């Protein structure tokens, strides 16, 4: 009984072992060693949780098609790390870029309209009808192609329809840049703080007239003149910041007569300045008092 058992199952094992070994030699097909390595790193569970037909198919997809490496559920973190090692992938780079929307018309209520758009929610479609509903032919049309294109939930819309980018969530994937038919969105290093939020190439008077928020760039060139780093230049009636040169000093934002240049610290700076002036005044007063 015991003997039969050992002999029969053992010889089945022997047979299969020999067969497989032989076949693997005889029917060997060359594959990218990377694929083999990744295949090794994967659990060979062939559970298809990754949505590929089996581990080797997934391994191939990683190497050939550049599919995400974190799809293997049974493999867990270990497998991801190993694959990352094989593929030579680095952790995401430190210099992160985020989306900046170069229009601050101030939302639906603040925009001047040429007509009442009645169509599907799509910026592209809106612009295809008589160049878009707003008077400014450069500004945001508020149909949110960009928001819908963001896979990371990084864009939110406020009560007035303005779009805000969450710098934390934004991965800089650039999907919104492609989506915006008005080319309002640009990927900028998240270290940059000062932005010109207007894209109107119209003449100053015209852009002033068509911007509902009155924050259009009117091509007065003050910023160009005041920038200590020569980081701003004019392009056909529009000031543009050269981010390579910009050092976030915010002087341009302070001098811009229409607030077309945005700097989150502008207020703070103004307050500080006021406080300093006050202090100075008080000090002067004190001094005067002392003098007296």
């Amino acid at each position, binding site marked *: 009984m015991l003997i039969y058992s050992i002999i*029969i199952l053992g010889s*089945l094992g022997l047979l299969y072992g020999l067969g*497989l070994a032989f076949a693997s030699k005889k029917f060997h*097909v060359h594959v990218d060693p990377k694929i083999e390595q990744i295949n090794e790193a994967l659990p060979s569970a062939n559970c*298809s949780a990754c949505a590929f037909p089996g581990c080797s198919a997934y391994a191939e997809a990683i190497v050939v098609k550049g599919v995400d490496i974190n799809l293997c559920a049974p493999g867990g973190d270990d497998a991801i790390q190993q694959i990352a090692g094989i593929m030579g992938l680095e952790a995401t780079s430190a210099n992160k870029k985020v989306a900046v929307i170069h229009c601050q018309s101030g939302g639906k209520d603040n925009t001047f309209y040429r007509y009442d758009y009645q169509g599907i929610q799509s910026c592209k479609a809106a612009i295809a009808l008589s160049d878009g509903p707003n008077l400014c032919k450069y500004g945001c049309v508020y149909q949110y192609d960009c928001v819908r294109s963001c896979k990371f939930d990084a864009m939110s819309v406020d009560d007035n329809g303005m779009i805000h980018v969450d710098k934390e969530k934004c991965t800089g994937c650039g999907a919104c840049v492609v989506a915006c038919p008005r080319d309002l969105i640009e990927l900028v290093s998240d270290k940059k703080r000062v932005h010109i939020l207007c894209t109107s190439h119209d003449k100053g008077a015209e852009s002033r007239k068509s911007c509902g928020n009155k924050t259009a760039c009117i091509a007065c060139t003050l910023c160009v003149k005041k920038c200590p780093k020569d980081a701003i230049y004019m392009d056909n009636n529009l000031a543009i910041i050269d981010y390579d040169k910009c050092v976030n000093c915010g002087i341009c934002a302070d001098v811009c007569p229409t607030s077309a240049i945005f700097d989150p610290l502008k207020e703070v700076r103004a307050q500080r300045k006021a406080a300093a002036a006050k202090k100075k005044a008080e000090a002067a007063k004190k001094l005067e008092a002392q003098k007296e």
Partner: protein
Amino acid sequence: MNYFTQIFALAIAAIFVQNFVLMKFLGLCPYIGVSKKLDSALGMGMAVIFVMTMASVFTWLIQTYLLIPFRLEYLQTIAFILTIASLVQLVEMIIQKTAPALYKSLGVFLPLITTNCAVLGVAILNVQSEYNFIGAILNGLFAGVGFTLVLVMMAGVRERLDKAEVPPAMKGMPIAMIIAGGMALAFLGFAGLKF
């Protein structure tokens, strides 16, 4: 019943009434896992039909000519799974070398099959139901066809639901389960089908 009617009845039973996936709970992992795209579902289905039939043949032979004569029925599980695993691996290697085109469309699904309980399941069920050789082969074949049928249906439905407003929490696996539930409810309509 004449032989033809028997075969017909067996087919109807294995494909619809006692569908492996929806009624017997066999082969659920690939049913959920490989049903995202129609093309893969078809490939997988064909591969499963092939392997189930092959496995039925080999395991039946092993059972009848090795295990039973030597009273080794307790080795059934181990012998069957070993046979299936080796068989699949062997076939995969042979196809990859000799028929690359077939491998692309079918072969890539082969490794998945080792871990598909439907294959081991059909082998064991063949034994339990005391099928003769022909019966075992046909059962393997039709069980595979039944599997493919629901797999392809599932893939069609899921491709459509890819473009639907399924609540985020239900996306993916959960909704696939719900669809499976609905399909199983619908398949209850075949319950009690007899000729």
